């Protein structure tokens, strides 16, 4: 895959350089450029929200730093965790005294580093809580939910936590509602082509020209099955069956739906998928409250898409509807 880049080693810092040149009105960094925070952080009286993770997934993660969403984000190398002291720096900067909630995807490197950051922050009397995102149903069976990876569903977690914090929720309330949201969020993806980590220079995996991998993760982690590419309707139905089985909604339930492009897949194809998803949900007497169709959590130039279902209750609905504004995501 060809890239518009300079030295691969500089990929992340140059990307961040461009980011701050473009959005210096809204974003700032603290200590080092990998520690991205809202310009107005800390927001007095508000619980701080921080995330972190590898680069290569824009708008995830830093794209959700902004009003009504997150306060800060520690940015790692492509597909690699940031360090504990980067997360610590973010934590200190976004803490207004009401504590900081970490919300991020369940990957080993991130968990270890953010646990370290949390321990260090606590030494400085910052109350840190952690909510792990484990929405990828293809990564472990329901009995082992805690082993699941975190993928596009984290955007909904950011949204819910962000609204609750902005509305003045306590740290317990923010953690509580975010966990409740996550227990109602399920994602599954399909990949058609790999991506290339700039420093590695070759594709993360190989896949035949007429094959797809259902259930693949956003770093190219193995999915459930690799087989011949099928029609969009058929793939969508299969993913929806798996998601609905895992989520188990009841007739009349209200959902938010995200159809997320992994990178190379055109918006047109995401809308074709959404058309089918809408029909399948309608058949089952499930209502779509909001649809998010676009690129929300990517794997650089990977072709493919993921579907996220989010079952809403009244509070989750009003938090999802709450306004948000970041350089990459806005809703009014």
């Amino acid at each position, binding site marked *: 895959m060809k890239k518009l880049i300079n030295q691969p080693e500089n990929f992340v810092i140059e990307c961040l350089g461009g980011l701050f040149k473009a959005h210096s009105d809204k974003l700032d960094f603290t200590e080092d450029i990998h520690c991205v925070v809202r310009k107005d952080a800390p927001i007095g009286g508000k619980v701080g929200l921080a995330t972190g993770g590898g680069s290569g997934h824009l708008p995830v993660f830093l794209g959700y730093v902004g009003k009504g969403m997150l306060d800060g984000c520690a940015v*790692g190398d492509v*597909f*690699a*965790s*940031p*360090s*504990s*002291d*980067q997360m610590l720096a973010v934590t200190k900067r976004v803490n207004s005294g009401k504590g900081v909630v970490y919300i991020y995807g369940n*990957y*080993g*490197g991130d968990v*270890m*580093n953010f*646990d*370290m950051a949390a321990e260090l922050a606590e030494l400085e009397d910052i109350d840190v809580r952690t909510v792990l995102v484990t929405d990828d149903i293809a*990564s*472990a069976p329901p009995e082992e939910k805690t*082993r699941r*990876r975190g993928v596009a569903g984290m955007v909904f977690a950011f949204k819910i936590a962000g609204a609750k914090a902005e509305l003045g929720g306590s740290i317990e309330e923010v953690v509580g509602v975010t966990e409740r949201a996550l227990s109602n969020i399920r994602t599954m993806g399909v990949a058609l082509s790999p991506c290339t*980590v700039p*420093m*590695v220079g070759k594709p*993360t995996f190989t896949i035949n020209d007429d094959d797809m991998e259902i259930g693949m*993760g956003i*770093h*190219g*982690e*193995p999915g459930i099955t690799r087989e011949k590419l099928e029609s969009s309707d058929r793939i969508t139905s299969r993913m929806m069956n798996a998601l609905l089985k895992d989520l188990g909604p009841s007739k009349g339930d209200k959902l938010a739906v995200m159809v997320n492009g992994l990178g190379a897949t055109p918006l047109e194809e995401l809308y074709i998928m959404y058309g089918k998803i809408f029909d399948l949900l309608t058949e089952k007497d499930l209502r779509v409250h909001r649809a998010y169709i676009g690129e929300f959590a990517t794997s650089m130039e990977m072709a493919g898409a993921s579907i996220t279902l989010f079952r809403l209750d009244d509070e989750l609905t009003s938090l999802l509807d709450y306004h948000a504004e970041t350089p990459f995501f806005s809703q009014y």
Partner: protein
Amino acid sequence: MDVVISGKNVRESLIRVSDALFENADYLTSLDQKLGDGDIGITMTKIARTLKSYVTEQPFEDIGKSLVELGLVINRNAPSSIGTLLSTAILRAGKVVINKKEISTGDLAAMLDAANNGIKERGKSKLGDKTIIDALDPASKTFSELINEGVNLNDASMKALQSAEDGRDRVTGLESRVGRASWLGERTKGCIDPGAEVFVIILKSIIGI
């Protein structure tokens, strides 16, 4: 008569570790490609580079303090799973010998034990999960026992290495239960765990073979 290890000795062994990690980066990546995301070679190169530049600049006057600092710098430069675990190990090992200009074989045993416990705490994994622990834990136990029994450093080290290699090999046939590899399930059986192999390589180069 007890062997005494100086700051200079520690620096030299870390330089050997650095060289070994550079050399084995591609090999380790090939292991991680089967089990994980194939970035362990990048991590090892980052650690090797950090070791080389840190060790060159630092006198290792206070061995413990230097190691603690080194652990922090490694975390900053190589915060992947294995990078974070190794940085934790070095930091914990350093804490055991803070303020010391020389260390004894007993210190070494305590350092290895601290590293082992540090990785267990940080990674929350246990023996048999098929990780670095499966090489490190038996090596640490063997070394402590032998040093306690008065066996000399060289023999104790060689036996510890043997335990590490046995531990690594014992889990090769098992399923990975932790980290990225765990998502591969069945398909991990028969693949060498890259983290366990990293520990064997590090131990070998510390010993100097």
